[in-house]
């Protein structure tokens, strides 16, 4: 069955430090992969997506993610975290690019940022 695992429930980093949020997936075919961010009381905002091609993808707000097929991973990174990055981050996998099929989400990683 398709699934997404985000091993870290909660991560705290200092402002200015680097960040890596882990995501592992189980999917039978080539996956379409997404990272979304959710601030309190807000909907999900797309950070970046991977469909094919270059395995390192750039997103909004300075985020990037790398698709590693051999490790079934799609980890999210940011070189220098800002206090406004504090939020919950969700990794998701889908097919047909997300438009003709539903997304399967991980349980999320809550990011706290220390001043």
């Amino acid at each position: 069955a398709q699934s997404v695992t985000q091993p870290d429930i909660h991560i705290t980093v200092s402002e200015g430090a680097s960040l890596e949020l882990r995501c592992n997936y189980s999917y039978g075919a080539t996956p379409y992969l997404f990272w979304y961010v959710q601030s309190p009381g807000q909907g999900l905002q797309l950070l970046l997506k991977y469909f094919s091609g270059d395995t390192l993808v750039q997103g909004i707000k300075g985020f990037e993610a790398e698709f590693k097929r051999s490790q079934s991973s799609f980890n999210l990174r940011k070189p220098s975290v800002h206090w406004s990055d504090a939020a919950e981050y969700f990794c998701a996998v889908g097919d047909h690019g997300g438009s003709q099929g539903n997304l399967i989400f991980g349980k999320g990683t809550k990011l706290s940022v220390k001043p």
Partner: protein
Amino acid sequence: GAGVSQSPRYKVAKRGQDVALRCDPISGHVSLFWYQQALGQGPEFLTYFQNEAQLDKSGLPSDRFFAERPEGSVSTLKIQRTQQEDSAVYLCASSRGDTQYFGPGTRLTVL
């Protein structure tokens, strides 16, 4: 342009009441999705429309849940005889290409 909007943003219902949640997708978006997000969890798929056709309702947890999109635009998710386990945030998303755009959600609390 305007994003996906949902109303009401918050809904409190007594157990056994019926509720209706509304989603206004981005104009021109063919596909519309409903997800349920329980506290501390990721969103879980409920149902999917392409225009007015409901192509997948495999995620609806019981026959108390019903969704419609009669004119291929606005959608309504209806929950009959609400139960406490229905308490969650209900998210709507729309898409025309490869990406789903989410609304702010409706937080349903069943007392």
